[in-house]
């Protein structure tokens, strides 16, 4: 979530509504003005609450910038404290505006619950949000275009990923598909969760359909999902080619798969990262971990290809990582 930018859009949007009619050019200028000094445009509990959350998320990430220097125990304690601080900030945001969906979402996620409890908590938020206002596609046919419905999409995305982490693959798929229907642009990435769920369910038809819909927009989730799917179906030659595709798409992809690292909870959604970079592969592997664990010999199989192993090792050496 680009919180700063969304705060700007929110303030500009509410100001536009106050002004009444405003041309698109006028709105663009208004956005520029808000971007200069957002706090001057925060004039309602709704925006104040969102601003509190955005500030808290920034602070959370800033405070964790030096975590690399800590040992495991210190890191655990520091992270715990940061998550508590964030949760307290969510309380504050919610005291400003109880309807701040993102604050509720972040608070649940920051509690770092197991999938069953997290799903219960998220569905509770969803049930209340549903009563408050119905999700519409808006005038553009894509719910993402209305900055005020984005929290709802993020909530669905979190539900889908929680289902995936909890072994509920059909449910993950259903929610992801709902997400893609509400927002065909799919900024939040329902298709990524869907790809992994389809791979786990060994649903080749469904996977190909999704693949066709994305029409060549390759990414690590899709490539990793395809590799796992073909592997599970016993099509080992095709799986090998898919693995090559996965390995070549992103920098350090082999390293990411063979040496998975800790990934912080998404707060509240999957961080935006440059396409084709190491982080993309890291996130895809992180989300696929429960599915990979379900295929016990998968990693050894991938590691068994000298070119894949060498690619991982070369990346580690180049960046000074342990191998």
């Amino acid at each position: 979530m680009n919180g700063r930018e969304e705060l700007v859009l929110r303030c500009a949007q509410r100001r536009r509504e106050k002004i009444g009619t405003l041309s698109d050019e006028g709105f663009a200028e208004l956005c520029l003005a808000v971007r200069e000094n957002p706090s001057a445009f925060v004039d309602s509990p709704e925006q104040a609450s969102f601003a509190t959350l955005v500030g808290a998320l920034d602070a959370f990430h800033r405070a964790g910038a030096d975590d690399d220097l800590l040992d495991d125990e210190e890191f655990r304690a520091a992270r715990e404290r940061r998550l508590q601080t964030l949760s307290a900030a969510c309380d504050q945001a919610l005291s400003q505006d109880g309807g701040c969906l993102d604050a509720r979402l972040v608070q649940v996620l920051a509690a770092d619950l197991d999938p069953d409890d997290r799903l219960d908590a998220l569905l509770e938020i969803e049930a209340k949000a549903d009563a408050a206002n119905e999700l519409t596609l808006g005038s553009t046919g894509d719910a993402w275009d209305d900055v005020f419905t984005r929290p709802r999409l993020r909530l669905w995305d979190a539900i889908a990923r929680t289902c995936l982490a909890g072994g509920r693959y059909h449910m993950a798929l259903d929610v992801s598909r709902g997400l893609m229907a509400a927002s065909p642009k799919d900024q939040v990435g329902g298709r990524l969760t869907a790809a992994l769920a389809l791979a786990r369910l060994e649903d080749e038809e469904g996977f190909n359909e999704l693949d066709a819909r994305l029409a060549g927009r390759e990414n690590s989730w899709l490539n990793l999902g395809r590799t796992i799917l073909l592997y599970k179906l016993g099509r080992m030659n095709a799986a090998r080619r898919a693995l090559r595709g996965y390995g070549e798409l992103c920098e350090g992809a082999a390293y990411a798969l063979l040496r998975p690292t800790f990934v912080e909870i998404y707060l509240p959604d999957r961080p935006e990262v440059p396409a084709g970079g190491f982080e993309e592969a890291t996130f895809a592997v992180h989300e696929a971990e429960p599915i990979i664990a379900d295929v016990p010999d998968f990693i050894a199989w991938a590691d068994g290809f000298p070119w894949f192993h060498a690619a991982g090792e070369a990346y580690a050496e180049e960046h000074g990582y342990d191998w």
Partner: protein
Amino acid sequence: MAFDPRREDYQRLALRYALSLPKGNPVAAAKAFTDFGRRFARDRDTLPQSDADRAFHLVAVAAEVIDYQLPFSSEERADALINRGRDLLDEAISLDPKCHDAIRMRASRVSPSFDAQFSFLHEGADEVLASCQEARDAVPNDGDDERIALGRDIALRPYRRWMAALAEEALICGRNRSCIEAGERLLEQDPSDQADVRFTLALAYAKLEDEASLDALAKRYGTIIPARPADDAWMGIARLALAHKSHDMGQTRQLLERLIAAYPGCASALITQTELPDGVFARLAVPPYSEDELILAVSEATVLLQEGDDKSGRGVLGSWVARTTAKLYPEALAEAQEFSAPYYQQDEKGPQDGDAS
């Protein structure tokens, strides 16, 4: 009905012995059969038998050693048992190069990975079927329908065990469609389901969240011999997993209670969730609805229980089942805790430090 290696060994020799009996003299035959029991127990080498029979006998002994003694042996004895099992299987194969049970069991001991064993079984399936069918067709016709039927049935059992092992291995490998393919193929070949492959199928359908196919499987219980309703622990866990996966928690709880009711007094197995090595001959033969059966089913259902990103390390469903069972049946929790406490905590003296003590 699970496979009982001892019984099958007996049946093989009894069939062959029957062929050697004088025809048309029931009194002499009855007397001879009394003689058979004694000779089988004490002096089996004096009984008529083929190399295949001798090989199967070694398989039966190896099954006893590996499946029934090894899991309960002390560490010091384990190596000796492992070596003995291997020697028995090697000898069986040298006696009968088509002893598919021995070949399969030896492979399961030496395959470097689940995948390697899966591939081995997958690639061998057609050949094993052809070989077993050949053996079936070669069963001599001595005019006794019952004996012919049993002889033919025994000839096909190695194939059934092969396919059941293939389905099980595929499930462990996370290749659920392959598991279903192998299991369905076997069920079609043997609708009486001697191998109880439907248990493995139930787990695979749950893995793929395919409720319609699970329902269809339950309907096919009608052809099972001996008859058994679809309320076994495998089916119970599969249904419970489906309810959990669709987040119908009330239903999941009900299904858990139903499962526990089908295995009265055995709930602690759902808390300890012990993982056992799979039987290398076949799934261990245990009485229906016994605690052992529940333990086996829970162990095989590891693929469902341990899935997901759960901090306890038991898996999302696994920890839900353990937690909920403990809450519903506190006496089962007490039993499970006693059972799973390390040996030194069961001892009042507590742990001892170092070698000197």
